[in-house]
């Protein structure tokens, strides 16, 4: 479906606005003061901002994506590596101490979000579903890791912050699981009268149904 210019413009403005808002010293200081604010608020918002920017640019980048991001494989690979980097507690810690890491965070996470926005619509449902299932289970593992860690993982944060982050990540895992389950369960029904037409529609639809 074609997106109107106004919608794309709004998405781009919103994405850029979120990034700018997060860069302001006041919000940066507040959010990075706690591990929960840093990892569960600032970082996801940066990814979300990138997602909005990516969605806004999707039509303009259509030809490039067709050549370089077939089935979203390149985009997913990039996003996964960026997220892996920021899953490591030392990366989170270093972002506080070194400006270079901080700049990389503010550039890398929005790029990861944009890559996800440009990749999900292009991918096959099987890959999208597998990534979502893996994301939820790994969030649960991450929640446990932060809760069960016998030592303080970040020099910049208290051990009690880790426990709170673990609990928050567990809530995130539950929220994503519920959100992604509701789509397949209650998504907008598109009943097709016969098997043949249903099968044909499934073949014609790029990627078929979402799961």
């Amino acid at each position, binding site marked *: 479906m074609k997106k109107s210019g106004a919608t794309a413009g709004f998405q781009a403005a919103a994405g850029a606005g979120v990034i700018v808002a997060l860069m302001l010293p006041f919000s940066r200081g507040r959010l990075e003061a706690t591990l929960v604010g840093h990892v569960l608020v600032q970082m996801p918002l940066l990814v979300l901002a990138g997602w909005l920017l990516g969605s806004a640019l999707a039509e303009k980048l259509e030809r490039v994506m067709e050549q370089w991001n077939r089935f979203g494989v390149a985009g997913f690979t990039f996003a996964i590596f960026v997220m892996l980097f920021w899953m490591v507690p030392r990366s989170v810690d270093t972002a506080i101490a070194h400006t270079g890491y901080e700049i990389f965070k503010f550039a890398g996470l929005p790029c990861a979000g944009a890559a996800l926005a440009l990749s999900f619509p292009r991918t096959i449902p099987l890959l999208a*579903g*597998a990534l979502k*299932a893996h994301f939820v289970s790994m969030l*649960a593992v991450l929640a446990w890791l932060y809760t069960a860690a016998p030592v303080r993982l970040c020099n910049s944060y208290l051990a009690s912050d880790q426990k709170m982050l673990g609990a928050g990540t567990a809530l995130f895992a539950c929220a994503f699981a519920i959100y992604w389950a509701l*789509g*397949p*369960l209650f998504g907008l029904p598109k009943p097709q*009268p016969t098997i043949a037409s249903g099968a044909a529609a499934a*073949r014609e639809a790029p990627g078929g*149904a979402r799961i």
Partner: protein
Amino acid sequence: MANVSALVDRSTAVGAKPALTAVKLSMGLGGLALVLLMLLGLCMRLAQGGLLSMEPELFYEIMTAHGAGMVGIAALTGAGIMWFFLARHVQLTAAVYWLMLCCFLLGVALVLGAIFVGRFAGAWTFLYPLPAHSGGVWETGAAAVFLAGLLSIGTAFLLFYLETGRAIIARYGNLSQALAWPLLLRGSQDDAPPPAVVASAAVIVFNGIGIVVGAAVLAISLINLYAPSFTIDPLLAKNMIYFFGHVFINATIYMAVIAVYEIIPEYTGRPWKTSRTFAAAWSAIMLMVLAVYPHHLLQDTVMPGWALAIGQVVSYAAGLPVIVVTAFSLLVYLTRSGMRWDLASALLVTGVFGWTAGVMPAIVDAVIVVNRVMHNTLWVPGHFHFYLLIGEMAMAFGFMAWLTRADVPEGLPGASYWGFLAYLIGGTGVAVTFLIGGAMSVPRRWAVHVPEWFMQDRAAAFFALISIIGTIVLLGRYLARLAAAAKA
């Protein structure tokens, strides 16, 4: 011998073609592995009965292989059945089934390597922290390979459910439509899904959740193996493992029963339709399967009381939809249908009997006061042997017999009759001797038994031998007919 030229390809819609070879292969592999694992089971019963000398370490390795293998076989054959019949109604992608089979076989190879090369013997339930505390029997690497094997098998089924879910959504719009909720809530649905789709949708929902939880606890166990200071609350781990394990093994029979819904109408001439009651029952099953697992933790006194109460109450209730929807409906469909019995129909009806009867000991065991005495006895293996051997595997063999039956009515001739009878009598005997052992308070998972228990151990071994003979006959018939059809 019957004309076999028209055998095997019993698909009736264009969508059934994909992965037919893979489905046939799955069923054959499942049957072969079943025979091998039954032989291992026989060895365990002979060792317990004092008729075979076996070191306890080897006993527990065999017990681990037997448990993990049987769960895998039940899942693989159930998946084959679900795929085959779902393909009649939705458009599936064959490559995904092959991918699933490859991941599954890779997982099996890892699990077997961990057990028979690495000597892992921590049971298929890999209860935390046992994999990390072998007492010197196995190395950390063996436990890691075992867990990686289970992860690979879990990935296989995740792909399977994602693809079947995708295909159902492409056809019906969303899973609530496929679960016939409009029919359930409003009393009518324009495009009501057939029972195979309703059952598949329910299995996709609950086993998808189960697999995600299983993946998390497997990853946690793997990390704990190499970083023991990262511990998890053992009670939480046990909850996660039994949630995953119980949901996964339950799903096997819920997939296999699709064969009953699709095949029995061919015999009775009465289509198995999705009614309001049917939709309600499957929706209830979908929720109950997720809530029933605490009956595995009734002896964990530190569990919250409400969770144990749910485990007991839902265990009672979970049996009802099964009996109402399938067993009762089956009896109604069979009554005065004038159907002609053959091996396939006999095995499918036996499967429903095994399912229904096999649930009963579990319901008894789910009573907290009974559970305190019975749960660690042979009563529980009695339940799941009944449920799986006479229930799920009977349905799988029924499907295999139907897949390879001739176009002309065959009845139940000599070898098939005796094979069926041996499977039924032997399998029931195996399950009942376990139940008797449980009633005698014989503990389960003990490598060495005292002489007072030898009698029922030896009786079990005798019945196991009969059931193995029956299985070989049923499997031989399937393989011989596949070979004949391939030649024709």
